[in-house]
């Protein structure tokens, strides 16, 4: 089961997860990640832009990689685009598997790739205007783990 979506309006993470859980009745474990717009500091809004011909196909290919690498019952990747307010969900990733290690690793893998290897551009509006956000060094380090780590069963 694969559910990959690019969403241009707000969504409820709870409803998304409930929807996904119903589709994977045989999964013993589901690992989910919800990423939200942080409200700290001076951030008034966040805008995520994308490039239509690459972004969704790239997410779909990422899902296929994860489904090929781990024994999953299902994988959900939902990602917002457009302008969001602090507290709004940006991304929802959910991996269902018979064994929890597969679910943990697949969700972690997908998030690392969405963070610094997917076709999204992010900017924040603060009181002095818009600021583009680049990936942190940590994000590139997280991504490199998957080339080094042996596949675990």
């Amino acid at each position, binding site marked *: 089961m694969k559910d990959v979506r690019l969403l241009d309006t707000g969504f409820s993470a709870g409803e998304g997860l409930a929807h996904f859980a119903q589709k994977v009745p045989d999964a013993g474990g589901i690992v989910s990640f919800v*990423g939200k717009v942080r409200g700290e500091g001076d951030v008034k809004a966040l805008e*995520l*832009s994308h*490039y239509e*011909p*690459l972004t969704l196909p790239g997410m779909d290919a990422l899902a296929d990689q994860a489904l090929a690498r781990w024994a999953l019952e299902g994988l959900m990747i939902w*990602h917002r685009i457009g302008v969001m307010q602090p507290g709004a969900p*940006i*991304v929802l990733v959910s991996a269902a598997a018979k064994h929890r290690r597969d679910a943990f690793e697949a969700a972690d893998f997908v*998030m690392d790739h*969405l*963070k*610094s*290897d*997917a*076709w*999204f*551009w*992010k*900017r924040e509006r603060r009181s002095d205007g*818009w600021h*583009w*956000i*680049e*990936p942190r060094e940590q994000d590139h380090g997280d991504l490199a783990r998957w080339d080094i780590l042996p596949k675990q069963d």
Partner: protein
Amino acid sequence: MSVKVLFLGRLSAMVAPERDYPAPLNWQYLLDSLPEEARALVAGEKVRVALDGALLADKTSLIAQNGAEVALLPPVSGG
């Protein structure tokens, strides 16, 4: 007889979200048309280029014909 060029991410603020260029468009012509700061960024190795939705392995070989869409893609930041 034109080529649409899309500027993604911070390039959209440095140049414009999109611009039309006369066809055929090659890499040097495109570079020369950009303001200095954007030109340095676009010429650097971190900016990828897509032609009609497909990434180019070597962006300097770009030749876009009439009706084509070129996208200039700076480093991403998702999630």
